[in-house]
């Protein structure tokens, strides 16, 4: 049946297709049974996969002892049928597979044949180190192909070459092809149907000033249809596409929404606890280790349990429905779900209780997956015992649970954006275009941030023209109020109701707002190495870009220019990759080659990390004669200032790893890839907004993959390089993403605050003030009562950490949902029934 749907805007999130290596002779995929793709391997690792999570060879169903991964399959090649771009995700997913494999099978030897290691994402460098340092894991830098299968064993021989040993062959039990990402299968059809243009690689064509917008107004793209992307980028482009559609259709927001009506809550406070327990198989995640039927049988015998049942997936819609129905039918007043961590699914299960007319705080989750079956795969009996212990404790707590009420807080409809760079401005504009006031705080005299120093992008964006346009839009927007030369003095309040005190151009003002976005950017590292600031021939890449744009004759007329990558990062002080510098080097090199084709340019690198379509520019630079020379940190380049033929040159000494000799490069100009480092104000801003920092001192998002623009602190969001170094188009993506999340908050009139907050029993309170000192949120104060001054908790400010509980000498303050009774009963239930009887016997004997 054909249906016409009339819509105001469209989002295309058609994702990607894994590269199919079967057409390529050299990999023997489909020809040899023990050659699998990384997607196949991902299935092998999965507990819902073909062997229920066991990694087995297809040929003989035995565990492989030697596994090889071949990187860049289908990527970074210009041969017919391959992709010229870098798929960007394979290096890290391979490392993940290696870590998981070693976790399951300690004695497996893992060999990874790779080109550059592209750990350019947040915390990826550390992740790579973790994989590399595992025993029995070897990373070999070499192209590799499949030579043959050994007929008797069906083992696979990989052929590769290294600089030290030349061409070699090695036998493996299994080979994993780390395949790249192709555009969606139906990309041609999509482009024709929707009337959008594609780029040369078959992904959606977009402008780098707004990568979410396709060539056709009103049609947007999110996720990997923009180009190969990892999960966080997919998440924030999705949210960003939502925000851009909000700009178009805000006047219709909520028109199709229906309010959820729950049955009236049953007052069960007078009833004895009647607990229903549901034990989840989680497919095979739990039941392949824990004996679920035996556990259900055991649980049925526990005090207060009136019903216990197993479910294949408790979170499936029909199972959740079943919980609701059974709760009504059997009349439970409390529910225990024995499944996974409450982190993800607690809201869902709370909802099933509400559907059954029960207070949602009558739920407890017993985590028998992450904390049991996943860690005890090899000890099935003990794991079953432990699952039963965990559930028994959960049941004990559930018996003590009390109904709690959540409450609505009003939302102030304005937003505060800290930082007037591209990220902050883009975010501010998107929020303001959806009808909300925005206060934009900039520490400098002018808007623009780091982008003031950038002139082009690899994609060809004229940054200064673009920036002027954005700044103009910001100043023209009636809903955006800019504060210049501003510093934040104080931030008070909470989600939906912040009051921020700002000093701007000598005046102090208070701003009330419902949401905050931190887009404070990053700084450039000031190198202490390679004669920087000692010789006027040494620049950073950013400075070089500025000199090129200015037309500095000395730079443009240089005969020889050397770039050194990874200066100030990927080292002990800063254990991360600055992500942008490889592309920056290539961009500068191409700009110089265009102006002065005869200039000799050398790029000294560790791993070229021109991920995604940037790989094309790297290849282009190489074709234009830019020489890329790899070095290792153990034998880093050395620079000395010398006179050669009457002119000052910088002599760069670097070992050539391929030819095995030392090169001596005389450079007129030396350009350093200075690290991107956290902005100076990061700590201060973090303190004001009560947000946390990652190990490298960039802002720490709420979840690295799933909540990349939110902080764990409610109502505070982030975007741009304050989160981690990134390119302009990536910052723009994330800025729209943050705007989207801000709108989901500001478009509501109220927000719901948790019922799990502290409360003081005035009768027990001795007014010592211990709780007031312990509270970091200023949520507790003395209040006059007929019995004198007593501590009082403002439930709106209380965040439920409960530190005050452990300080009160009279136990007068209690964190609801985590009371002494609730936790104490759980602690007591950690001892088994038999143990309790044993102890009682001992007491009787004594008596």
């Amino acid at each position: 049946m054909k249906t016409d749907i009339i819509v105001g805007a469209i989002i295309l999130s058609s994702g990607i297709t894994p590269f199919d290596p079967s057409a390529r002779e050299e990999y023997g995929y489909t020809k040899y049974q023990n050659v699998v793709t990384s997607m196949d391997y991902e299935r092998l690792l999965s507990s819902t996969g073909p062997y229920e999570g066991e990694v087995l060879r297809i040929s003989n169903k035995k565990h492989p002892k030697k596994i090889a991964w071949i990187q860049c399959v289908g990527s970074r090649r210009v041969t017919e049928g391959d992709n010229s771009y870098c798929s960007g995700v394979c290096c890290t997913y391979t490392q993940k597979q290696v870590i998981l494999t070693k976790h399951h099978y300690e004695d497996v030897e893992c060999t990874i044949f790779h080109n550059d290691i592209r750990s350019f994402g947040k915390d990826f460098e550390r992740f790579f180190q973790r994989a590399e340092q595992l025993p029995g894991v070897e990373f070999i830098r070499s192209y590799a192909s499949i030579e043959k299968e050994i007929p008797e064993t069906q083992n696979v021989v990989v052929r590769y070459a290294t600089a030290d040993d030349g061409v070699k062959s090695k036998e493996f039990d299994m080979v994993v092809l780390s395949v790249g990402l192709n555009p969606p299968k139906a990309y041609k059809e999509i482009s024709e149907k929707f009337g959008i243009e594609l780029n040369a690689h078959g992904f959606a064509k977009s402008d780098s000033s707004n990568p979410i917008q396709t060539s056709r107004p009103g049609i947007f793209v999110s996720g990997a249809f923009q180009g190969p992307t990892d999960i966080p980028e997919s998440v924030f482009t999705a949210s960003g596409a939502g925000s851009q559609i909000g700009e178009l259709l805000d006047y219709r927001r909520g028109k199709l929404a229906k309010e959820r009506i729950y049955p009236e809550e049953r007052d069960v406070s007078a009833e004895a606890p009647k607990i229903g327990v549901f034990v989840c198989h989680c497919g095979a995640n739990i039941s392949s280790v824990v004996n679920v039927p035996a556990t259900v049988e055991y649980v049925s015998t526990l005090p207060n349990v009136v019903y216990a049942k197993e479910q294949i997936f408790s979170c499936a819609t029909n199972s959740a429905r079943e919980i609701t129905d059974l709760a009504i039918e059997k009349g439970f007043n409390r529910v225990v779900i024995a499944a996974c961590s409450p982190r993800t699914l607690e809201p869902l299960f709370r909802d099933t209780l509400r559907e059954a007319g029960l207070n949602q705080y009558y739920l407890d989750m017993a985590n028998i997956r992450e904390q049991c079956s996943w860690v005890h795969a090899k000890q099935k009996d003990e794991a079953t015992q432990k699952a039963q212990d965990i559930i028994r404790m959960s049941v004990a707590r559930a018996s003590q649970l009390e109904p709690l009420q959540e409450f609505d807080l009003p939302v102030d409809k304005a937003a505060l954006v800290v930082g007037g760079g591209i990220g902050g401005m883009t975010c501010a504009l998107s929020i303001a275009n959806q009808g909300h006031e925005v206060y934009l705080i900039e520490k400098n005299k002018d808007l623009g941030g780091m982008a003031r120093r950038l002139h082009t992008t690899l994609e060809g964006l004229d940054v200064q023209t673009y920036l002027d346009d954005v700044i103009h839009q910001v100043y023209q927007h009636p809903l955006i109020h800019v504060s210049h030369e501003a510093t934040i003095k104080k931030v008070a309040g909470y989600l939906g109701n912040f009051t921020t005190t700002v000093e701007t151009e000598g005046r102090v003002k208070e701003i009330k707002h419902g949401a905050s976005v931190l887009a404070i950017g990053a700084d450039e590292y000031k190198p202490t190495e390679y004669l920087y600031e000692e010789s006027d021939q040494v620049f950073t890449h950013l400075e070089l870009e500025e000199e090129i744009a200015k037309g500095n004759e000395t730079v443009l007329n240089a005969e020889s220019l050397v770039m050194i990558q990874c200066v100030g990062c990927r080292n002990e002080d800063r254990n991360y990759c600055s992500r942008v510098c490889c592309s920056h080097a290539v961009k500068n090199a191409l700009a110089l080659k265009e102006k002065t084709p005869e200039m000799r340019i050398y790029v000294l690198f560790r791993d070229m990390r021109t991920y995604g379509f940037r790989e094309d520019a790297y290849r282009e630079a190489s074709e234009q004669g830019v020489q890329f020379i790899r070095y290792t940190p153990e034998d880093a380049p050395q620079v000395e200032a010398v006179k050669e033929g009457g002119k000052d040159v910088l002599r760069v000494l670097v070992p050539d790893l391929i030819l095995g000799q030392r090169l001596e490069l005389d450079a007129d100009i030396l350009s350093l890839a200075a690290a991107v480092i956290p902005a100076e104000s990061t700590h201060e801003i973090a303190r004001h907004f009560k947000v946390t920092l990652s190990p490298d001192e960039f802002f720490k998002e709420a979840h690295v993959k799933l909540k990349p623009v939110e902080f764990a602190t409610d109502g505070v969001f982030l975007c741009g390089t304050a989160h981690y170094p990134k390119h302009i188009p990536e910052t723009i993506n994330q800025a729209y993403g943050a705007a989207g999340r801000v709108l989901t908050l500001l478009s509501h009139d109220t927000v719901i605050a948790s019922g799990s907050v502290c409360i003081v029993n005035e009768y027990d309170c001795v007014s010592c003030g211990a709780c007031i000192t312990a509270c970091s949120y200023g949520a507790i104060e003395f209040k006059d009562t007929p019995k004198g001054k007593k501590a009082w908790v403002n439930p709106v400010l209380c965040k439920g950490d409960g530190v005050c509980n452990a300080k009160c000498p009279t136990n007068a303050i209690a964190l609801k949902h985590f009371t002494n009774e609730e936790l104490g009963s759980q602690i007591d239930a950690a001892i088994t029934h038999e143990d309790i009887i044993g102890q009682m016997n001992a007491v009787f004997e004594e008596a």
Partner: protein
Amino acid sequence: MCSGRVDLDFILRAFSNGQDGVFIGGCNLGECNYVTHGNFDALANTYLAKKVLEHIGLNPERLRIQFMSGADGNLLAEYTDDFSKKIKELGPLGKSEGLDKNQVKFNLEAARKLVPYMRLVERERLRVPVKSKQAYTEFFESQDVDRLFNDIFSDKLAISQIMMLLEKKSLSTSDIAEKLGLNSSDVSRHMINSSRQGFVRYDTASNCYALA
């Protein structure tokens, strides 16, 4: 809920129930999920509880705190394995310490009664001004703190134990001294003080003390 919510009483309660070891997990120090940095409070509580355990003859290694981030599942597994190994080495509570099980329970219950008092002491005299692991370690491992703890805790524990004995029946000073392995002059001192404070009364007929 923050690791700072882990009450001194929870720890002693678990041991009193007969647990052979207690493990506390918290966020990395300096990386608070809230803004409270309550994991330092958890650390302080752990040090205090270890001193209590030591004081009543239990191996303080039966209690351990480790810090890790939400993404450190592997570390949690590693720490747990290591701790389990340690506890297996130590065996059932009191056994490697050469203590009687009921005596251990009695002492732990007596210590639990002091938790409110210990909270006051912690607040007033055991505050570490700098929130760093080094500062906490240095402070709690210093001899001054040890001395302070012994000064204030041993008397209070003895009194708590005496009260628990008297709950069951009236006893003479020498009975008490014998049951608790204390010298009679100390017991007399405690009894005189407690009687002054109105907690106990002396029955001249039987020569015994009873709860007031």
